[in-house]
Structure formats: C-alpha cells, structure tokens
C-alpha cells in the first residue's frame, strides 16, 4: 500500500503529464484509476487543483460516472451485461447463477478482496449474447461455467 504522501506525489506527476490538454479532467481521472485501481482520496487535491474545481465539485464529477471507483475493486473484475439483447438470450439467468456461485450481489466485492461483480449495459456483443467481461477479457455466448472458469483463471 502506498501512503497518502506517495499517492499525492504520483497523482501530481499524472496531472502534470496532462498539462495543455483541453478538458483534461476525465483523462486524468482515468489515468489515476489505471494507476491505483481507484481514485484515492489522497489524489483529490492534485486533481482538483489541476482542473480548477473545488473538492466538492470534483467529488460530484467522480460520483457521476459509473466507471470511477472511490474504493479499490477486487483482484478479479467480473462484468455481466444486463441490457436487452443479453436479456433476450437468458442473461438474467446467467447473472443469477454467477451471483449465487460468487455469493455476490451487483457492485459487491468479496470479503477477501478476490472478486468484484459489476453490471454493465452493453458490451457491443449483442449478436453473440449474453456477454461478460472478466478482467478485461470478453466472453460471448457466456454461461455461468465459462464465467466462473475465467474467474478462476484470473485468480491464479
């Protein structure tokens, strides 16, 4: 774990790398999240300063977007598509099975920090539904077995 000082100094580097970028806040937030796995509180002052907004305004931006996390995710990120084309191919059933096997509801992370389950509304794989994404890897015609195998692979 990095301490707050280390986070702030790394965040400051990221911010500086975005100088001159028009509307740089989202690119900076993505870069910070890529670095730390979430947007840590300790990075906020650097981001707020660079974007010229208050801490409260920055919080408003971060919380608006589903992607940005204020707490770290699990080691394996499981995203299951909940949108209509996947529903039409039994996506709800697959989701219920995966939820039961993981013992997780939407947006939850397992107590040991191993797995996070998130819903997603369309991965653009609607012609090979239902769709899932495990640690970035896309799965078409997903079923619970394939999703769980990918989770096991991600933990190994």
């Amino acid at each position, binding site marked *: 774990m990095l301490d707050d000082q280390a986070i702030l100094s790394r965040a400051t580097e990221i911010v500086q790398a975005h100088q001159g970028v028009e509307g740089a806040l989202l690119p900076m937030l993505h870069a910070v999240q890529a670095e730390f796995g979430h947007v840590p509180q300790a990075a906020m002052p650097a981001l707020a300063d660079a974007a010229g907004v208050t801490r409260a305004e920055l919080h408003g931006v971060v919380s608006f977007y589903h*992607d940005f996390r204020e707490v770290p995710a699990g080691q394996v990120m499981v995203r299951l598509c909940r949108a209509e084309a996947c529903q039409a191919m039994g996506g709800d059933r697959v989701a219920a099975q995966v939820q039961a096997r993981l013992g997780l509801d939407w947006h939850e992370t397992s107590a040991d920090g191993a797995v996070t389950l998130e819903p997603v509304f369309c991965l653009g794989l*609607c012609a090979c539904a239902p769709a899932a994404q495990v640690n970035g890897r896309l799965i078409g015609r997903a079923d619970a077995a394939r999703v769980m195998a990918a989770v096991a692979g991600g933990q190994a």
Partner: protein
Amino acid sequence: MKVFVPLDAAARALGADEVVAALQTEAARRGIELTLVRNGSRGMVWLEPLVEVETPDGRVGFGPMDAASVAQVFDGGPLSLGPVEDLPWMKAQTRLTFARCGVIDPLSVDDYRAHGGCAGLMRALGMDVEGRLAEVTASGLRGRGGAGFPTGIKWRTVAGAVADRKYIVCNADEGDSGTFADRMIMEGDPLSLIEGMVIAGITVGATKGFVYLRSEYPDAIAMMNRAVLVARTAGMLGPSVIGSGLAFDMEIRVGAGAYVCGEETSLLNSLEGKRGVVRAKPPLPALEGFMGKPTVVNNVISLATIPVIFERGAAAYAALGIGRSRGTIPLQIAGNVARGGLFEAAFGMSLGGIVDGLAGGTATGRPVKAVQVGGPLGAYFPRALFDVPFGYEDYAGQGGLIGHAGIVVFDDTADMLAQARFAFEFCAVESCGKCTPCRIGAVRGVETVDRIARGDASAIPLLTDLCDTMKAGSLCALGGFTPYPVLSALTHFPGDFACAREAAE
C-alpha cells in the same frame, strides 16, 4: 499461405485469439509459412471466428472456427464455407460504409487506399466549401446516432458560424443495447472514420477533432489510437492534410460508463471534464458546443459514411432508400436470433424480412414475440407490424424509432411487463438528474409497473399518465423516449399486463 482472422471484439469474445494460436501451431507442424492478417469482422457474427484464406479465386471462409478444428483450414471439412463474397449474407448487402470492414488490414494505409480509401477526401479537397456542403446536403444523409437530423444542415450552421476555433466531435458512445456498428467500423476500418472527420473539419473550418469513445470498448479505443498515429504518418492528419495547406488533427477521448453521455450536450460537458448533465437547448452545439465554440457533433456512422459519399457522389448515395431516408443503414441484428450480425442495406427493408429472413428467426427455435428497434428508448414491435419498412418516418409513424438501427429479437418466453419495468429501471440508473420528469418519473415508473404486476389494474392509467408527463416534460430523449418501450409493451402485449391482474383476482 495468407490467412485472415478477425480482431473484432465479437470474434475475440468467441475465441479468435485461441484460433490464431492454434493456426500458428498447425502451420508450423506442417512446415507451412503463414502470413497472418488480423482484419475486422464481415459482420456475420454467427460465423465468428471466421477464418479466411486467400486463393487465386478469392478469399474462402471457414467458420465458426474453433481451436480444435483448425486443421480444416488446411484440409477442408464441414466448416468450409466457400468464397466469402458469395455467401448469401454478403451478396444481398449494399456495403458502402462497411465496404472495407473485414476486408482490409485496418491499420494499413496501402490496403485502405487500394480499396477506395482517401478517394473521397481527394475529391473533397478539389471542391470549395460550398461544393462540399452541397454534396453532403444532396446525399440526404441524416444522423445515424438516433435523431436523424440532416447532416448537411448541421454542417452548414457550423460552417457559417464565426469563431476563432471550431471543433468536430465524433459521438462514439454507442450505449444502445443491440448496437455495435460504431464498434465494428472503429475496429475494422478506423481510417474511414478519420477520413470522414477530416472532410468535416475542412468543410466547416474546424482544425481539431475528438472521438468520445465509451470505455466499454477497450479494443476500439486501442485501435483508434493506433489509427490516429498511422493517419498522421500518412499525412491524412496534421498541419497540412495531404499537402492541401489545410490543418486538421484529432484525439481519442474515453467515456466513463454513463449512458446519458451519448446525448450530445451531456457528451460535451463530459468532454470538458464536467458531470455529464444535459444542457438546455438552445444554444445549439453547432453554435456553442465544446468550450462554447461552434461544434459539429456527429455519430461514428454518419462521419464514416462521408468518405464514400464523396467517393461515389451524392447522387449515387441518394439514389438508394425510401422517402426521406436516403442511402444505406447498417442494420444490427441481435438478441435471440439464429443469425446475428451487421447487414448494410438501403433503407426500406421490412422488419419481417430482417427478422424472419436475414436473421433466420430465433436462436432458441421458438416463435418471435417482440422486436425492440432502436435501443433502450425504442419501441417493442409485435409480429403484426412486421411489414413496416425500415425508415425514419415509417417507424415514427408506428410510435417507434429506428435510433441507431439496433434490432433486438425476443422469443415467446419474453415477459413484456418485465421489459417495461426494465426500461424504467434503466432510465432511473442512467438519468443525469437534471430534470424531474426523468429522474423521479423513472422511479415512479418502476413502482407503478410493480403495482400492475401485483394485480392492481388501476395503476395502468397512472402508467400512461406518467408516460405522457415524461414525454412532454423531459429535457432530453432519455426521459422523453423511455415511454416508447413502455407504452409499446402495454399496447401490443396487453396480455402480459393483464394476466398478472387475473392471477391476483
């Protein structure tokens, strides 16, 4: 031996990378030298991963391929499909926007030019601004992002605005369920989008472009970033586009998982680093868009169609289609279908022809119950409306919309009350919160549908009232169009709303 294996995200989600590894092993075992090209997808998703081999008689296909069956690519076998261009799905299309997608190496400028790429830009450079505007207007092109606004009129407004800076913003947020045309073209022929943005830039006097690309598409993001570098090296982007003295350059920006950021003013706020809340119109983005400057906001497909319009001429494009829906539309056929994928055709196909013909009915083999056209804000169509021709006005006339041309098929196990509930639930999750009819109405909608589900028939008029309020009072189409899926479900499938009531009685 030259072999093509798509790098398209759908092909990869179905095992294309594993097929590549197996092909390489098999070729090495046989002592065959393999030249491997990672192309885009042809759009026949049910055949992905579709492996193609170059032969003197054209490219022959094998699919759906899996790692265990790659020997067939060398020896033939049941997965052999023959010449790809002769497959019925390919022959029946009018591929203009997608002409190169699945054919070329997406990052090869030589391939691109050999297949007509840059011809449109060269022709556009030979015209003056008025000529370019007239060409886009005469093509009849309307926005493919959903609203169907005439592209020529939008460009003319921006061209006529006086400002020190102007922008081209490509809307690549593609949040609608059932749609993947933007993703496919960005992964399979990214240079066509870049060329379209360059033509837009030199026409309206913008020197800078952005692609606002949803974060759910990591492959497309990577491809577009690489394509921008390739285009710069080739002189398509930079201080003097193809030596014309006209400057245009662009950047790829990544969204952050908010559906409403596909709405153009919300998108602009997001691009500026703000919460993605919807702006009241006027002012139009064309006059006060990104950073308050005149801005063209266009969908990926609108922009990627511009090059072929200039290449073939506006008249050739406008000759296709029906009524005020000119040219071609990439239909995206999804959900419960035997054959899903992308099919580019002139406007005018009947829904039945698409669903029963092209798609071959459902994947489950059960009867089709409902078809949602145009994403989560689009109406559910029953079989009784299967003769409606694919066109903007034709769908509007049936209480629906074509949106981004996503077509999602459901079999007879679908529960339309549950689908209506989902429409409200989605709106509640994704509302930007700025206007009350959308923010509160969506939550009330879920509650009202739940009352109906519990057998409370008196909630049905409340539901229609609520839909009227949302339609009339919402700031954008998220709240304004959520009533479409809800009311169409109620109107066309009343049984799904009534049986709950009967069960309770």
